[in-house]
């Protein structure tokens, strides 16, 4: 299980990669492992939509469970990974790469400070076990 050092995390197992004002969002390797085989991804926001931190941006279904993905930091949606719903298994095979879900233009970068860094997220996962 990997926890890349260049990302920020939520306690709810989302990651965000910040590149200037653009944040790219997905779910962590730990999250995909817990969910097991992902069979369905539905991105529930549209390009141009302004979404607040904590709002649902996607719904995932595995063979055993269903889960919502929440936005780690507020922003305007600037890109959607349209290919992901066609290949939901990418969430299992490449959670930090091809399985990105949306990109947002961040509207409140201060919110990033409330997120976990890699070390804090790893500690949080360890607590679950």
């Amino acid at each position, binding site marked *: 299980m990997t926890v890349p050092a260049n990302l920020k995390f939520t306690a709810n197992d989302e990651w965000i990669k910040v590149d200037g004002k653009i944040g790219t969002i997905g779910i962590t390797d730990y999250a995909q492992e817990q969910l097991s085989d992902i069979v369905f991804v539905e991105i*529930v926001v549209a390009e141009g939509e302004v979404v607040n931190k904590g709002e649902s941006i996607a719904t995932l279904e*595995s063979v055993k469970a269903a889960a*919502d993905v929440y936005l780690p930091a507020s922003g305007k949606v600037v890109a959607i990974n349209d290919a992901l719903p066609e290949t939901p298994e990418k969430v299992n095979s490449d959670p930090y790469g091809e399985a990105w879900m949306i990109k947002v233009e961040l509207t409140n970068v201060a919110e990033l400070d409330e997120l976990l860094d890699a070390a804090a997220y790893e500690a949080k996962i360890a607590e679950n076990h």
Partner: protein
Amino acid sequence: MFIPHTDSDREAMLHTVGVESLDELFQDVPTAQRFPDLDLPPALTEMEVVSELADLAEANESVRDLTCFLGAGAYYHYIPAAVDQILRRSEFYTAYTPYQPEISQGTLQAIFDYQSLITALTGMEVSNASHYDGATAAAEAVSMAFAHFRGKRCKVVISPALNPQYRQVIRTYHDGTEVQIVGDKIDKDLKDGLQPLLEHIDQQTALVIVQYPDFFGRIYDFTALAEAVHKAGALLAVSVNPLSLGLLTPPGEFGADIVTGEGQSLGLPLSYGGPYLGIFATRQEYVRKMAGRLVGETLDNRGQRAYVLTLTAREQHIRREKATSNICSNQGVMALASTVYMSLLGKNGLRQVAELCYQKAHYAAQRLAEIPGFSLWTETPFFNEFVVHCPKPISDLNEELLDYGIIGGYDLSQDYPELQNCMLVAVTEMISREDIDLLAETLTEVCNE
């Protein structure tokens, strides 16, 4: 199996909650109400009980003893004896899909066959394992449309010609939610057809629900309505009498997104109102928003055909508060009955039953329209039910008909105050030409007294 608590079980439980005795546990219930005198007659022998129950049962007026022209959503059809015979097999004796479903391959196969038959009949791509009845299935269509648009479209347009009970159940289900129900307030002439519905459809509309044939028995071509609904980006639900689809174009062919229906006409007895069968079918693209159970066919580890509950992550027991609906059971025995019924009749048999209903109803409409003072309410094509305007209040007529052994049609003024003296007459294959002639003669007689 029911296993009663033993004395030591009870003692352990009392000890756990911290009371000494059952009396102490119930001390908040006033003593007089704790063990009230029930004033029961002396105990009877089994023979006496059977005799008394038989007397009570015989006091019922049954469609077997009377001639029934009452429909309005539940119909008296012939049920082949094999339906009941198969239902009584103990392997099928549970109302629910089991909690370890794949252990019951027979139950799952029956549900899979039911789903396959329903999709063939409605022209849709997927069917769930069923809901409680036609009304709850219609309410689930509203839930599904609401979930599909994620609450961004809240308006639901309901035809005033949708069964009034279904409209009530939809309101009960969605009372207190953001769903806003419009379209069935009767401020327009009920004979105007679809135009008043079209006027309600806009960008806020999630769903439009119509009935086919409608509550008054009328058949409309919904092709243009479906186009208008889709142009506004909304979904179209069609509530059907499935038996009519033996004859009519299936809703899947004119653009329905959801088909719901009351499955009672497919081999279920009237039984004073239930249990019935809620049909729910939709298009593949909406399957994850569909409530209820879904059985799929697959291969097991030996390569043999096997049945499984599939896409269960849609359901309330996994998705919980995020699910489309809190329903995750189905009407197993009733779905089985309809499966056996449809299998026995086959495509041609269903068409024959539907044609008999159609032709007999049209003969009845012609006979009743000939009676002085009686007229047909509308010229719109109909299936097995039609509205006849009578010279007297329907409740009075029905009381008189009962004296002649006839259950008259539905009194529409109960739900539609502007339809005074309007009777909704249903005719099925159980009605003979003589029965129809008797109805016409009796009505002529009681109106000329």
